[in-house]
């Protein structure tokens, strides 16, 4: 716990050095959901203001919250692992009595507070443009805060476990590309899963992706009952445990292959 406080502080301090970069990154984050938002609100308008039960206001809320969820589920990417292994940059972490996971996790967790500050003007701008409809019930807000961090933990573990592939192959970036494509379709990142064919939402139900995107968003915009929020957080916990176990198992084998190249 003592380390987590110090690590997050360092993550926050490092990121605040680059606050302009953080703001530009967040500004860039607007582009992807804005495209989705424009497309789907146009479709909804063409169908009388609603599509699959989602009004234009709900769709606007969905994609505005999307930007914050995206900030929170940013995690250490597998292609960065490729660089880290190739350049021997893991050395500095391995010689200290703390697992690299904690170093990376706390850095990202700390940085999120800076990114959240940079997100506020982006959210205000999008809200003024698209007129979203939110449901500010306490259960939604509290559930959202938990789900937001839960989504971060699940996605961080997913990407961290995936990053281990780089210990065996130099094609980690290609596999990361497949992951991103799957995530776009199966998480609610591209579009709420209700707008996807049923077989895709059926597959998504068995995978961890939706708990990192659509679940936190739906929690905040009031599309879930209190029971669904609680069970969703339970699913996040379940996937966190499964992915943590997978990561530990793979890490113990992967690290034996580390070449520690360079000085």
């Amino acid at each position: 716990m003592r380390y987590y406080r110090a690590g997050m502080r360092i993550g926050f301090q490092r990121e605040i050095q680059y606050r302009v970069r953080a703001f530009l990154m967040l500004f860039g984050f607007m582009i992807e959901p804005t495209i989705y938002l424009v497309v789907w609100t146009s479709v909804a308008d063409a169908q009388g203001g609603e599509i699959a039960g989602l009004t234009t206001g709900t769709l606007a809320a969905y994609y505005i919250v999307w930007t914050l969820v995206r900030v929170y589920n940013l995690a250490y990417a597998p292609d960065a692992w490729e660089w880290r292994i190739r350049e021997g940059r893991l050395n500095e972490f391995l010689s200290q009595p703390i697992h690299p996971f904690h170093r990376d996790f706390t850095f990202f967790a700390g940085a999120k507070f800076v990114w959240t500050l940079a997100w506020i003007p982006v959210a205000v701008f999008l809200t003024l443009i698209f007129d979203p409809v939110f449901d500010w019930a306490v259960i939604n807000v509290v559930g959202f805060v938990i789900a937001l961090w839960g989504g971060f933990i699940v996605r961080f573990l997913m990407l961290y476990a995936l990053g281990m592939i780089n210990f065996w192959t130099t094609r980690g970036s290609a596999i990361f590309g497949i992951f991103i494509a799957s995530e776009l379709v199966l998480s609610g990142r591209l579009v709420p899963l209700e707008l996807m064919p049923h077989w895709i939402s059926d597959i998504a139900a068995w995978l961890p992706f939706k708990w990192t995107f659509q679940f936190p968003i739906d929690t905040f915009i009031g599309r879930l009952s209190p029971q669904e929020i609680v069970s969703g957080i339970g699913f996040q916990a379940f996937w966190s445990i499964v992915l943590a176990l997978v990561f530990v198992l793979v890490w113990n084998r992967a690290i034996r292959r580390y070449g520690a190249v360079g000085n």
Partner: protein
Amino acid sequence: MANPLDIPVVVDALSKTFKVPVREAGLGQSVMSLFKREFRDVEAVKEIRFTLDTGEIVGFLGPNGAGKTTTIKMLTGLLFPTAGTARVLGHEPWRREKELLRRIALVMGQRNNLAWDLPAVDSFELNKAIYGIPEDVFQKRKGEYIEILDVADIATKPIRNLSLGERMKMEIVAALLHGPEVLFLDEPTIGLDVTMQRRLRQFILDYNAQNGATVLLTSHYMADVSAMVSRVVVIDHGSILYDGPLAGLSDRFSAHKTIRVEATDLPEDLGQLGRVLERNPARASIEVRREDVSTVAGHLLAVATVTDLAIEETPLEDVIDRVFTSESGGSDDTQN
């Protein structure tokens, strides 16, 4: 006989072989390598054995690619060995147990372990949390080290704004805050100016004297070696060539000494006494075989009006150079 568990570092038949991809030059070979990759085994370290005693500072010497850094990486838990064993403070290092990692430190001269964008004091705080250093101990050590190295004014500047020498000072402070019992220093003074090198050397020597820490040091600067170590382990092509006192290195690998003489009437035939390294009317340097030193010195004193005469060991750089350039890795005295 000392209990093996009391010896801080024990290395026994430790080996490391890397599998390295190989291919011939050319586009055709590049395409072929997509379908069939060929690998070659490179033995970086071959069954090496040595121990380090408590409080000892040992120089680990060798040319580039000799296996020094690979060995240090195995001893600090960065690399798994291919064969053999090693124990550092009673632990197998590659298991990376926290109990061990809290008691050792690794400093690599060309690597930056501190947060690049933040002042060193922030990284020190992080290390306090990582190593679980009690607040009072942390403050005492930090204050002490900052004062000794005279870095109070730069400790609060972002690392990226510091010079190489200033960064190294900060790296050393960060590495010693938790009071490591075993220190692995890989080229700690590389790229530093002479004054900075001297300062860091003294700092490490003081740390060793005060804490009884064991130090394994690699350096290409012989000034580091001669100032800090009494024992050296020499490695080349992954095998240990020599393990013993620094003074013994010259005896073993250099069969010569240098006589420097100043005289008003130096004889013309100095070449008959040995290899003349330098000659001018009033001064000469002659390299002679060890066993001939007293005879040659006596002869010079007898035939010339000598104002000064000094007998010197071959410079350490030259001895090391001979060790690595000699094919057998043995003595340069081809008669033996």
